[in-house]
Protein backbone atom coordinates (compact mmCIF):
# COMPACT_ATOMS: atom_id res chain seq x y z
CA UNK A 1 0.00 0.00 0.00
CA UNK A 2 2.87 2.37 0.88
CA UNK A 3 5.92 0.70 -0.66
CA UNK A 4 8.39 3.42 0.29
CA UNK A 5 7.17 3.47 3.86
CA UNK A 6 7.19 -0.34 4.15
CA UNK A 7 10.88 -0.31 3.25
CA UNK A 8 11.87 2.07 6.03
CA UNK A 9 11.82 -0.60 8.72
CA UNK A 10 9.29 0.92 11.09
CA UNK A 11 7.71 -1.04 13.91
CA UNK A 12 4.23 0.07 12.83
CA UNK A 13 4.38 1.28 9.24
CA UNK A 14 0.60 1.19 9.04
CA UNK A 15 0.39 4.52 10.92
CA UNK A 16 1.93 6.37 8.01
CA UNK A 17 0.26 7.10 4.70
CA UNK A 18 2.21 8.17 1.65
CA UNK A 19 1.23 11.18 -0.42
CA UNK A 20 0.49 8.72 -3.25
CA UNK A 21 -1.93 6.83 -1.03
CA UNK A 22 -3.65 10.03 0.09
CA UNK A 23 -3.94 11.28 -3.49
CA UNK A 24 -5.69 8.04 -4.39
CA UNK A 25 -7.91 7.72 -1.33
CA UNK A 26 -8.59 11.23 0.00
CA UNK A 27 -12.22 11.11 -1.09
CA UNK A 28 -12.95 7.50 -0.17
CA UNK A 29 -16.10 7.31 1.98
CA UNK A 30 -14.23 5.41 4.69
CA UNK A 31 -11.33 7.86 4.77
CA UNK A 32 -11.25 11.34 6.25
CA UNK A 33 -8.15 13.40 5.57
CA UNK A 34 -7.64 16.04 8.24
CA UNK A 35 -5.37 19.06 7.96
CA UNK A 36 -4.10 20.51 11.22
CA UNK A 37 -1.78 23.52 11.21
CA UNK A 38 -0.39 26.22 13.34
CA UNK A 39 -1.41 28.87 10.79
CA UNK A 40 -5.18 28.78 10.76
CA UNK A 41 -5.28 30.50 7.36
CA UNK A 42 -3.31 27.79 5.67
CA UNK A 43 -6.13 25.28 5.22
CA UNK A 44 -8.37 27.99 3.81
CA UNK A 45 -5.64 29.06 1.38
CA UNK A 46 -5.61 25.60 -0.21
CA UNK A 47 -5.72 22.00 1.03
CA UNK A 48 -5.67 18.42 -0.16
CA UNK A 49 -8.91 17.83 -2.09
CA UNK A 50 -11.44 16.28 0.25
CA UNK A 51 -9.57 17.25 3.39
CA UNK A 52 -11.30 18.81 6.39
CA UNK A 53 -9.80 21.18 8.93
CA UNK A 54 -9.22 20.57 12.62
CA UNK A 55 -7.85 23.52 14.56
CA UNK A 56 -5.75 22.51 17.54
CA UNK A 57 -6.85 25.45 19.68
CA UNK A 58 -10.56 25.70 18.99
CA UNK A 59 -11.37 22.06 18.13
CA UNK A 60 -9.13 19.98 20.38
CA UNK A 61 -8.70 22.11 23.49
CA UNK A 62 -11.23 22.97 26.16
CA UNK A 63 -11.91 26.67 25.79
CA UNK A 64 -11.82 27.40 29.52
CA UNK A 65 -9.65 24.91 31.39
CA UNK A 66 -6.20 23.89 30.23
CA UNK A 67 -7.23 20.45 29.06
CA UNK A 68 -8.52 18.65 26.02
CA UNK A 69 -12.08 18.32 24.93
CA UNK A 70 -14.36 15.88 26.69
CA UNK A 71 -15.99 12.78 25.22
CA UNK A 72 -18.98 14.92 24.24
CA UNK A 73 -16.74 17.42 22.52
CA UNK A 74 -14.95 14.70 20.60
CA UNK A 75 -18.25 13.17 19.56
CA UNK A 76 -19.42 16.54 18.27
CA UNK A 77 -16.17 17.08 16.40
CA UNK A 78 -16.20 13.67 14.73
CA UNK A 79 -19.89 13.92 13.91
CA UNK A 80 -19.27 17.29 12.26
CA UNK A 81 -16.46 15.75 10.22
CA UNK A 82 -18.81 12.99 9.10
CA UNK A 83 -16.65 10.29 10.67
CA UNK A 84 -17.61 7.00 12.26
CA UNK A 85 -15.64 4.67 14.49
CA UNK A 86 -14.57 2.82 11.35
CA UNK A 87 -13.32 5.88 9.49
CA UNK A 88 -9.62 5.92 8.71
CA UNK A 89 -8.44 9.38 9.65
CA UNK A 90 -5.27 10.64 8.00
CA UNK A 91 -3.63 13.72 9.46
CA UNK A 92 -1.27 16.10 7.75
CA UNK A 93 -0.19 19.69 8.24
CA UNK A 94 2.41 22.39 8.28
CA UNK A 95 5.66 22.51 10.24
CA UNK A 96 6.57 18.96 9.30
CA UNK A 97 3.41 17.53 10.84
CA UNK A 98 3.80 19.00 14.34
CA UNK A 99 0.11 19.66 14.65
CA UNK A 100 -0.84 16.57 12.68
CA UNK A 101 0.97 14.43 15.24
CA UNK A 102 -0.55 16.46 18.05
CA UNK A 103 -4.05 15.87 16.68
CA UNK A 104 -3.23 12.20 16.12
CA UNK A 105 -2.16 12.00 19.77
CA UNK A 106 -5.36 13.65 21.03
CA UNK A 107 -7.40 11.23 18.93
CA UNK A 108 -5.66 8.36 20.69
CA UNK A 109 -6.96 9.65 24.03
CA UNK A 110 -10.39 8.82 22.64
CA UNK A 111 -9.35 5.46 21.26
CA UNK A 112 -9.66 6.34 17.58
CA UNK A 113 -6.78 4.07 16.63
CA UNK A 114 -7.72 3.85 12.96
CA UNK A 115 -5.49 6.84 12.35
CA UNK A 116 -2.48 7.70 10.24
CA UNK A 117 -0.19 10.57 9.48
CA UNK A 118 0.65 11.53 5.91
CA UNK A 119 4.43 11.21 5.75
CA UNK A 120 5.96 14.55 4.78
CA UNK A 121 2.82 16.57 5.47
CA UNK A 122 2.06 19.73 3.53
CA UNK A 123 5.63 20.37 2.52
CA UNK A 124 5.94 17.07 0.62
CA UNK A 125 2.51 17.43 -0.96
CA UNK A 126 3.43 20.91 -2.19
CA UNK A 127 6.89 19.92 -3.37
CA UNK A 128 5.32 17.18 -5.46
CA UNK A 129 3.09 19.82 -7.07
CA UNK A 130 -0.03 17.96 -6.08
CA UNK A 131 -3.36 19.77 -6.28
CA UNK A 132 -4.61 22.06 -3.54
CA UNK A 133 -8.15 23.34 -3.43
CA UNK A 134 -10.11 25.94 -1.53
CA UNK A 135 -13.29 23.95 -1.86
CA UNK A 136 -14.42 22.93 1.62
CA UNK A 137 -16.01 19.50 1.38
CA UNK A 138 -19.41 18.88 2.93
CA UNK A 139 -19.78 15.44 4.46
CA UNK A 140 -23.04 14.15 5.85
CA UNK A 141 -23.14 14.53 9.60
CA UNK A 142 -22.79 11.32 11.60
CA UNK A 143 -23.62 10.31 15.16
CA UNK A 144 -20.16 9.39 16.37
CA UNK A 145 -20.04 7.60 19.70
CA UNK A 146 -16.79 7.87 21.61
CA UNK A 147 -15.63 6.22 24.81
CA UNK A 148 -14.61 8.37 27.75
CA UNK A 149 -11.22 9.95 27.24
CA UNK A 150 -8.50 7.66 28.56
CA UNK A 151 -5.36 9.65 29.21
CA UNK A 152 -3.24 7.17 31.09
CA UNK A 153 -1.62 5.15 28.26
CA UNK A 154 -0.55 8.19 26.27
CA UNK A 155 -0.45 11.21 28.54
CA UNK A 156 1.73 12.04 31.54
CA UNK A 157 0.79 14.54 34.23
CA UNK A 158 3.16 16.46 36.47
CA UNK A 159 2.88 13.96 39.31
CA UNK A 160 3.71 11.12 36.93
CA UNK A 161 6.68 13.06 35.62
CA UNK A 162 8.01 13.81 39.11
CA UNK A 163 7.85 10.12 40.10
CA UNK A 164 9.32 9.09 36.77
CA UNK A 165 12.19 11.55 37.19
CA UNK A 166 12.84 10.48 40.78
CA UNK A 167 13.07 6.85 39.69
CA UNK A 168 15.52 7.70 36.92
CA UNK A 169 13.06 7.06 34.09
CA UNK A 170 13.75 8.06 30.51
CA UNK A 171 12.80 11.65 29.69
CA UNK A 172 13.18 13.26 26.31
CA UNK A 173 13.27 17.05 26.02
CA UNK A 174 12.56 17.86 22.37
CA UNK A 175 12.98 21.65 22.61
CA UNK A 176 15.87 23.59 21.18
CA UNK A 177 19.27 23.18 22.87
CA UNK A 178 18.99 26.77 24.13
CA UNK A 179 15.67 26.07 25.83
CA UNK A 180 17.10 22.86 27.28
CA UNK A 181 20.10 24.76 28.65
CA UNK A 182 17.88 27.45 30.12
CA UNK A 183 19.58 30.22 28.18
CA UNK A 184 16.31 30.80 26.31
CA UNK A 185 12.82 30.63 27.82
CA UNK A 186 10.96 29.93 24.60
CA UNK A 187 11.38 28.77 21.02
CA UNK A 188 13.24 31.05 18.67
CA UNK A 189 10.63 33.28 16.97
CA UNK A 190 7.99 32.45 19.59
CA UNK A 191 6.83 34.48 22.56
CA UNK A 192 7.65 33.56 26.12
CA UNK A 193 4.41 32.05 27.30
CA UNK A 194 5.14 32.65 30.90
CA UNK A 195 7.57 30.05 32.23
CA UNK A 196 9.27 31.63 35.22
CA UNK A 197 12.31 29.37 35.21
CA UNK A 198 14.47 28.06 32.40
CA UNK A 199 16.25 24.74 32.14
CA UNK A 200 15.10 21.14 31.89
CA UNK A 201 13.73 18.31 33.97
CA UNK A 202 16.68 16.59 35.67
CA UNK A 203 17.86 13.56 33.78
CA UNK A 204 16.14 14.50 30.53
CA UNK A 205 18.01 13.96 27.30
CA UNK A 206 18.03 16.75 24.75
CA UNK A 207 16.87 15.48 21.37
CA UNK A 208 15.28 18.31 19.36
CA UNK A 209 12.16 17.03 17.60
CA UNK A 210 13.36 17.93 14.10
CA UNK A 211 16.11 15.36 14.25
CA UNK A 212 13.43 12.79 13.39
CA UNK A 213 12.70 14.25 9.98
CA UNK A 214 14.34 14.65 6.62
CA UNK A 215 14.35 18.43 6.21
CA UNK A 216 14.16 18.34 2.42
CA UNK A 217 10.69 16.78 2.30
CA UNK A 218 9.46 16.58 5.89
CA UNK A 219 9.28 12.77 5.90
CA UNK A 220 10.36 10.75 8.89
CA UNK A 221 13.86 9.33 8.81
CA UNK A 222 14.15 5.57 8.41
CA UNK A 223 13.97 3.32 11.45
CA UNK A 224 17.71 2.67 11.22
CA UNK A 225 18.45 6.40 11.23
CA UNK A 226 16.02 7.03 14.10
CA UNK A 227 17.51 4.14 16.07
CA UNK A 228 20.97 5.61 15.58
CA UNK A 229 19.82 8.91 17.08
CA UNK A 230 17.54 7.81 19.90
CA UNK A 231 18.92 4.43 20.90
CA UNK A 232 22.61 4.58 20.08
CA UNK A 233 23.63 8.22 20.33
CA UNK A 234 21.22 9.08 23.17
CA UNK A 235 21.14 5.61 24.76
CA UNK A 236 17.36 5.31 25.08
CA UNK A 237 15.94 1.83 25.52
CA UNK A 238 12.78 0.89 23.64
CA UNK A 239 11.84 -1.40 26.51
CA UNK A 240 11.86 1.29 29.20
CA UNK A 241 9.06 3.70 30.03
CA UNK A 242 9.66 7.05 28.36
CA UNK A 243 8.12 10.51 28.71
CA UNK A 244 8.52 13.22 26.09
CA UNK A 245 7.97 16.93 26.66
CA UNK A 246 8.50 20.32 25.08
CA UNK A 247 6.68 23.58 25.80
CA UNK A 248 2.99 22.70 25.52
CA UNK A 249 3.21 19.16 24.17
CA UNK A 250 2.97 19.76 20.45
CA UNK A 251 6.57 19.21 19.38
CA UNK A 252 6.84 16.33 21.82
CA UNK A 253 3.82 14.60 20.29
CA UNK A 254 5.89 14.41 17.11
CA UNK A 255 8.67 12.63 19.01
CA UNK A 256 6.07 10.53 20.90
CA UNK A 257 4.81 9.37 17.50
CA UNK A 258 8.30 8.53 16.25
CA UNK A 259 9.27 6.58 19.37
CA UNK A 260 5.98 4.72 19.78
CA UNK A 261 5.08 3.81 16.23
CA UNK A 262 8.23 4.07 14.19
CA UNK A 263 10.70 2.61 16.71
CA UNK A 264 8.21 0.52 18.67
CA UNK A 265 8.87 1.88 22.17
CA UNK A 266 6.43 -0.05 24.35
CA UNK A 267 5.56 2.61 26.93
CA UNK A 268 5.89 6.21 25.85
CA UNK A 269 3.77 9.09 27.08
CA UNK A 270 3.60 12.76 26.19
CA UNK A 271 3.74 15.34 28.99
CA UNK A 272 1.60 18.10 27.51
CA UNK A 273 1.95 20.28 30.59
CA UNK A 274 5.56 20.43 29.46
CA UNK A 275 7.77 23.41 30.22
CA UNK A 276 4.93 25.91 30.52
CA UNK A 277 3.87 23.89 33.56
CA UNK A 278 7.17 22.53 34.92
CA UNK A 279 8.92 25.89 34.57
CA UNK A 280 6.26 27.44 36.80
CA UNK A 281 5.80 24.72 39.42
CA UNK A 282 6.93 25.67 42.91
CA UNK A 283 9.68 23.51 44.32
CA UNK A 284 10.22 21.00 41.53
CA UNK A 285 13.81 20.23 40.60
CA UNK A 286 15.26 21.91 37.51
CA UNK A 287 18.60 21.27 35.92
CA UNK A 288 20.59 23.69 33.76
Amino acid at each position, binding site marked *: MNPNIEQKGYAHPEVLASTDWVAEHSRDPGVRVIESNEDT*LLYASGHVPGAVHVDWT*SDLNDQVRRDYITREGFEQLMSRLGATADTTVVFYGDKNNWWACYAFWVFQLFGHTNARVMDGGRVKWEKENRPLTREVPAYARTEYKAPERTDQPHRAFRGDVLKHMQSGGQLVDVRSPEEFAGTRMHMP*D*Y*PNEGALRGGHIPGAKSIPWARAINPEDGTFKSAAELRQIYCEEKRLSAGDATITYCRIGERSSHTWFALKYLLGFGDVRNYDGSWTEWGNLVGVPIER
Partner: protein
Amino acid sequence: MAADYPRSLQSVLDTFELFPDPADRTNLLLGYADQFREVPPEVATRPFDKSHQVPQCESDAYVWAMKMPDGTLKLHFAVENPSGVSAKALATILERSLSGLPADQIAQIDPSIVERIFRQNLSMGKGMGLMSMVEAVRALARRGLGT
Protein backbone atom coordinates in the same frame (compact mmCIF):
# COMPACT_ATOMS: atom_id res chain seq x y z
CA MET B 1 -9.42 55.07 24.14
CA ALA B 2 -9.24 54.08 20.48
CA ALA B 3 -5.92 54.78 18.79
CA ASP B 4 -5.85 57.42 16.10
CA TYR B 5 -4.91 55.66 12.89
CA PRO B 6 -4.33 57.07 9.41
CA ARG B 7 -7.58 57.08 7.45
CA SER B 8 -6.39 54.38 5.05
CA LEU B 9 -5.55 52.00 7.86
CA GLN B 10 -8.67 52.86 9.83
CA SER B 11 -10.69 51.97 6.75
CA VAL B 12 -9.13 48.48 6.69
CA LEU B 13 -9.80 48.02 10.41
CA ASP B 14 -13.38 49.16 9.94
CA THR B 15 -13.85 46.65 7.14
CA PHE B 16 -12.73 43.82 9.41
CA GLU B 17 -15.11 45.04 12.12
CA LEU B 18 -17.97 44.61 9.65
CA PHE B 19 -17.33 40.87 9.55
CA PRO B 20 -17.74 39.28 12.96
CA ASP B 21 -18.07 35.81 11.42
CA PRO B 22 -14.69 34.01 11.54
CA ALA B 23 -15.20 32.44 8.11
CA ASP B 24 -15.82 35.85 6.54
CA ARG B 25 -12.73 37.29 8.18
CA THR B 26 -10.68 34.35 6.99
CA ASN B 27 -11.85 34.97 3.43
CA LEU B 28 -11.07 38.65 3.79
CA LEU B 29 -7.54 37.85 4.92
CA LEU B 30 -7.11 35.35 2.11
CA GLY B 31 -8.20 38.02 -0.34
CA TYR B 32 -5.41 40.28 0.87
CA ALA B 33 -2.90 37.41 0.73
CA ASP B 34 -3.92 36.68 -2.85
CA GLN B 35 -3.19 40.28 -3.80
CA PHE B 36 0.30 40.22 -2.31
CA ARG B 37 2.87 41.85 -4.60
CA GLU B 38 6.48 41.03 -3.99
CA VAL B 39 9.14 43.72 -3.85
CA PRO B 40 9.96 44.75 -7.44
CA PRO B 41 13.43 43.92 -8.79
CA GLU B 42 14.35 47.58 -9.09
CA VAL B 43 14.13 47.78 -5.29
CA ALA B 44 15.61 44.42 -4.26
CA THR B 45 16.54 41.04 -5.72
CA ARG B 46 17.45 37.69 -4.20
CA PRO B 47 19.35 37.00 -2.10
CA PHE B 48 17.73 39.74 -0.10
CA ASP B 49 19.87 41.83 2.20
CA LYS B 50 19.49 40.39 5.70
CA SER B 51 19.32 43.90 7.11
CA HIS B 52 15.79 44.05 5.66
CA GLN B 53 14.67 40.77 7.22
CA VAL B 54 11.91 40.99 9.82
CA PRO B 55 13.24 39.55 13.09
CA GLN B 56 11.26 36.80 14.80
CA CYS B 57 9.10 36.14 11.74
CA GLU B 58 8.87 32.48 10.79
CA SER B 59 7.56 33.37 7.37
CA ASP B 60 10.94 34.82 6.48
CA ALA B 61 9.54 38.25 5.64
CA TYR B 62 11.54 41.23 4.40
CA VAL B 63 10.54 44.87 4.28
CA TRP B 64 11.83 47.95 2.48
CA ALA B 65 10.75 51.60 2.79
CA MET B 66 11.61 53.89 -0.12
CA LYS B 67 11.52 57.62 0.41
CA MET B 68 9.49 59.29 -2.34
CA PRO B 69 10.14 62.77 -3.77
CA ASP B 70 7.22 64.19 -1.79
CA GLY B 71 8.77 62.93 1.44
CA THR B 72 6.34 60.07 1.97
CA LEU B 73 7.38 56.43 2.18
CA LYS B 74 6.59 53.54 -0.18
CA LEU B 75 6.67 50.11 1.46
CA HIS B 76 7.66 46.85 -0.21
CA PHE B 77 7.67 43.32 1.16
CA ALA B 78 8.91 39.84 0.36
CA VAL B 79 7.70 36.66 2.08
CA GLU B 80 9.97 33.73 1.39
CA ASN B 81 7.98 31.01 3.17
CA PRO B 82 5.38 29.72 0.68
CA SER B 83 3.12 28.87 3.63
CA GLY B 84 3.32 32.41 4.95
CA VAL B 85 -0.27 33.23 4.08
CA SER B 86 -0.82 35.47 7.09
CA ALA B 87 2.42 37.34 6.49
CA LYS B 88 1.37 37.99 2.89
CA ALA B 89 -2.04 39.23 4.02
CA LEU B 90 -0.52 41.63 6.52
CA ALA B 91 2.13 42.78 4.04
CA THR B 92 -0.59 43.68 1.56
CA ILE B 93 -2.56 45.59 4.19
CA LEU B 94 0.50 47.50 5.38
CA GLU B 95 1.74 48.23 1.87
CA ARG B 96 -1.63 49.55 0.74
CA SER B 97 -2.65 51.46 3.82
CA LEU B 98 0.68 52.99 4.84
CA SER B 99 2.46 53.68 1.56
CA GLY B 100 2.11 57.33 0.68
CA LEU B 101 2.12 58.46 4.29
CA PRO B 102 4.89 60.52 5.87
CA ALA B 103 7.40 58.62 7.96
CA ASP B 104 6.31 60.20 11.23
CA GLN B 105 2.80 58.82 10.83
CA ILE B 106 4.04 55.36 9.94
CA ALA B 107 6.41 55.36 12.91
CA GLN B 108 3.43 55.70 15.24
CA ILE B 109 1.45 52.67 14.05
CA ASP B 110 0.61 50.46 16.99
CA PRO B 111 1.57 46.79 16.46
CA SER B 112 -1.65 45.80 18.24
CA ILE B 113 -3.45 46.34 14.92
CA VAL B 114 -2.37 42.74 14.27
CA GLU B 115 -4.76 41.53 16.95
CA ARG B 116 -7.61 43.57 15.53
CA ILE B 117 -7.03 42.25 12.03
CA PHE B 118 -6.35 38.58 12.73
CA ARG B 119 -8.39 37.87 15.87
CA GLN B 120 -9.06 34.10 15.96
CA ASN B 121 -6.55 33.55 13.19
CA LEU B 122 -3.74 34.64 15.45
CA SER B 123 -1.76 31.72 16.81
CA MET B 124 0.94 32.03 19.41
CA GLY B 125 3.99 32.03 17.17
CA LYS B 126 2.40 33.80 14.29
CA GLY B 127 1.23 36.73 16.40
CA MET B 128 4.74 37.58 17.40
CA GLY B 129 6.04 37.36 13.83
CA LEU B 130 3.24 39.56 12.49
CA MET B 131 3.72 42.18 15.17
CA SER B 132 7.41 42.10 14.33
CA MET B 133 6.48 43.01 10.75
CA VAL B 134 4.76 46.14 12.05
CA GLU B 135 7.72 46.87 14.32
CA ALA B 136 10.08 46.51 11.36
CA VAL B 137 8.01 48.99 9.36
CA ARG B 138 8.05 51.40 12.31
CA ALA B 139 11.81 51.04 12.64
CA LEU B 140 12.32 51.85 8.96
CA ALA B 141 10.04 54.85 9.29
CA ARG B 142 11.96 56.09 12.33
CA ARG B 143 15.15 55.69 10.33
CA GLY B 144 13.51 57.74 7.59
CA LEU B 145 12.94 60.39 10.21
CA GLY B 146 16.59 60.30 11.11
CA THR B 147 15.91 59.13 14.65
